[in-house]
């Protein structure tokens, strides 16, 4: 999620970004094991891509989500349970949640 200065969260539209950004799932799987500077660099890359599309990014938040695929709401899955794991602000990634 990107967060603007007013605190509004917006999902990062990875599928609409250039193909070089489509490895988000794989990056997130190993994000916790990255050194802090590399975590910050990943957040920075995502934030810049969103800014390049006109979005405002004050920070990037990374949530861990747990989805129960069997719980359906109409044609969609029920919203996942989520826990804040990381917050990236100006060249830093802090554990959160």
């Amino acid at each position, binding site marked *: 999620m990107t967060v603007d200065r007013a605190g509004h969260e917006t999902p990062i539209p990875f599928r609409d970004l*250039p193909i*070089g950004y489509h*490895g988000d799932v794989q*990056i997130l799987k190993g994000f916790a094991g990255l050194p802090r500077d590399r975590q910050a660099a*990943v957040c920075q890359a995502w934030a810049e891509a969103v800014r390049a599309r006109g979005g405002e990014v004050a920070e990037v938040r990374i949530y861990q989500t747990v*989805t129960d*695929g069997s719980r359906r709401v109409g044609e969609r899955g029920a919203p996942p349970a989520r826990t804040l794991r990381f917050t990236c602000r100006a060249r830093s990634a802090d554990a959160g949640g």
Partner: protein
Amino acid sequence: MPAGEATLRRVEGWLFAAGDPRRLAAVRIGLCGLLAVRLASGPYAELATQPPALFRPVSFLRLLDRMPSPEAVAVLQALALSAAVLATVGLLTRVTLPLAWLAALPLVAMTSSLGKVVHNDVLLLLCLVPLLPSRAGAAWSLDARQRPVAVRGPLFGWPVRTAMVVVAGAYFFSGLAKLLHAGPAWVTSGNLRWVLYAASDAQPRPNPFALAVADRPALAHLVAAATLAVELGFPLVLWRPRLAWLFVPAVLVMHAGIGLAMHLDYRIMAATVLVVLVDWPALTDRFVPVPVQEPP
């Protein structure tokens, strides 16, 4: 003779039996044509602009710390594409085919540098390997116009049969991996339903094809069982070539289904199966009979 040795000899006899140079040529034309299409349409230039922090190579590109530069990619792409087109038409085939393959390798590896292997191109590249040292340009090529007509022989059989083994192995080991990873539960549990629900949920709009199967447990079990049967049974086409009439359409339907339900593009892989498993000269002879010269 021990049974193991006898089996080995039979396998060798099958693999190195004489083959039609036109069948090898058809495989060359098909696979190099597919490679040219892939090289012309692949997202390599876009991948070259990826921020280094997002670079997640899974193969030999680990030697680099970021994607190759856009300039290097442009040169490689032009070289690989030109060589693939020349290999398709069969000009200087012994040089252009290996050159196309070698130049394509780092480009295809770029698509697998987002953290996971992109299987779509892997089968194509693997099937091209036995053609690299072969006389794939001996028929249906520009090279062949300057040489005596190639006749059926042992040099032309093994590359095609090796490619067939590669295709059969790709499906068999996909099926085996499912069994080793999940066991019979891959079919008997709700596994496929949850996969299809997740695929539909990840798309901007609910996917009617995915939901049509996922909403019907019996149908989901049937599709899972059929998938496993087709994958594990695919090597039977090596033993009984006529079974290709069953298994080739089956994997084409499977890939089409995956494309419709999960939006995963396996067109190049499906086309590779078609190129390698169909006996194109036999089809050509059936529909365009070769005129027989009457004796004087």
